[in-house]
């Protein structure tokens, strides 16, 4: 059985009026079947371009992307039967209801009326959209509109779903509504490729995470695998003024205007706590998080938006 998604030495360059911008320099990775794979990166890191290449919107300049063994260029027609997409910053038709979106999207894809109705009812029910399913989208909240787009994509019975930043710009409560929808499909055994720059989203939803930066695929693994790839397993956050040189023997110290974070090993925690210069009420100790992994792999420099 071929893997759901495989990218090898992928390169994509945008050319416009004599200028060229490398959006993807080298993406080499593969996605396992069933579950959520999150492509995590900052704006301009190549996530959206990758989705566009994978969904046959753009052609690669070099390398390849295969979806269940089908090449995005050579087998594009077959491949389109296997994929479904929520594009970045997509919006529903203002004058239509969420139910109509799903129903007509089914019919548009060749389904009969009865089958389209049943499918629309089933997806609306699964995603918990009954309360607003027959309200015109112009009157819905941002999250409900986004759920409509997700419902439309998920209504197709395809083998892999591409969700390009489906929660961008939404508040945390609304984002959780979209997360629930994604989780339900993951639990139903579907394969989902999700792009996001929200670390909490990637940590919450993903079975596996791929980290990208500046058009390069940096690393992939489960959250635990990514954590274990770091030299340290514990983060010690200290608020207020701290003489960070005192902590350098214990690990890596990072200071900014918010305070100081020491990346260290569990074995040093007691020594740190016994240090008289540390005010205990201003200290937080915990395991390394995805944000720490991300910063250690990607850094904190600004990236340019690829679009």
């Amino acid at each position, binding site marked *: 059985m071929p893997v759901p998604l495989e990218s090898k030495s992928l390169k994509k360059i*945008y*050319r416009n009026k004599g200028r060229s911008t490398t959006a993807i320099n080298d993406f080499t990775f593969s996605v396992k079947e069933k579950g959520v794979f999150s492509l995590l990166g900052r704006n301009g890191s190549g996530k959206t371009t990758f989705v*566009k290449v994978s*969904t*046959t*919107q*753009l*052609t690669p300049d070099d390398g390849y992307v295969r979806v269940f063994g089908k090449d995005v260029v050579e087998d594009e*027609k077959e491949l*389109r*039967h296997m*994929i*479904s*997409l*929520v*594009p*970045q*910053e*997509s*919006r*529903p*038709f203002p*004058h*239509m209801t969420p139910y*109509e979106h799903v129903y*007509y*999207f089914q*019919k*548009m*894809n*060749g*389904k*009969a009326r009865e089958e389209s109705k049943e499918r629309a009812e089933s997806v609306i029910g699964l995603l918990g959209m009954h309360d607003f399913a027959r309200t*015109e989208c112009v009157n819905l909240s941002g999250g409900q509109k986004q759920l409509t*787009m997700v419902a*439309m*994509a998920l209504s*197709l019975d395809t083998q892999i779903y*591409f969700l390009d930043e489906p929660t961008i710009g939404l508040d945390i409560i609304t984002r959780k509504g979209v997360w629930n929808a994604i989780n339900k499909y993951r639990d139903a055994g579907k394969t989902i490729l999700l792009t996001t720059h929200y670390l909490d989203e990637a940590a919450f939803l993903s079975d596996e995470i791929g980290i990208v930066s500046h058009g390069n695929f940096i690393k992939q693994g489960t959250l635990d695998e990514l954590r274990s790839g770091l030299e340290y397993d514990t983060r010690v956050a200290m608020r207020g003024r701290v003489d960070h040189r005192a902590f350098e023997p214990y690990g890596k110290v990072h200071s900014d205007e918010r305070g100081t974070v020491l990346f260290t090993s569990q074995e040093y925690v007691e020594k740190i706590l016994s240090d008289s210069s540390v005010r205990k009420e201003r200290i937080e100790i915990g395991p390394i998080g995805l944000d720490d992994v991300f910063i250690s792999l990607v850094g904190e420099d600004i990236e340019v938006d690829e679009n």
Partner: protein
Amino acid sequence: MIRELYRTITSLTAMNGFIPLWRRPIALIAVISTPFSFLFFIYLFGGPSKILIGAIGGVLFTIVNASTMLQTDLLFYKLDLKFQQVVASTPINPLAYMFGLATGNIVFTLPGLAIFMAIIVYESHIGTLQILSVIGTLATTWVIFSMFSFLVSTRVREMRDIWPISVMFSIIFGVVPPIYYSISALPGPVQYVAYVVPTTWAAILLKGIVIQDFAGVALPALVFVIEMLCVLAFTSRFSDWRLNRS
């Protein structure tokens, strides 16, 4: 295959035609206001004898204008809603997508077209064959300009660029060509330019069918069909349906 195409086209027709018309009927008035204004002025300055020419012009202008304005819808769905990306990643045929939305666009013009057709039939007493020929000519005009709109919409990258473009095309293809007047009224060299525009041939055909009882319509009909095939080939070759694939 045919059944699936039918479902694709009717769904898009509902999405771009019947549903918005049902919920926003005000758009109906906007679509038919311009050709009826022209008819009013033609009647005012030309008298009752010019009503037929005004109605023939009105029916043609309505089709050309609606098909040209399709550019705006197509671009809105592509750039603002990103709906074209959703569709382009499915097996849906781009021409079925275009014809579905174009049919939806025509839904708004149907009341206006019906009134103009009623005036034409009442004024000229044409028979069934002539009515069907008029409808065929209008359908070909609709295909040509819908495809042209599709081509333009796949090439434009900014929403704000499309408004001046669509208004300009509407005037160039809908108002300036000899719809409301005879082509012989144009100076010699300008006539050659006018013959390049499909609307000119559609106008010659309609006048030939309605006023001259099919006299001399064979050549315009042939040229018109060839123009449609050229636009179809040109659109298939140069439309950029899936973003910039190069």
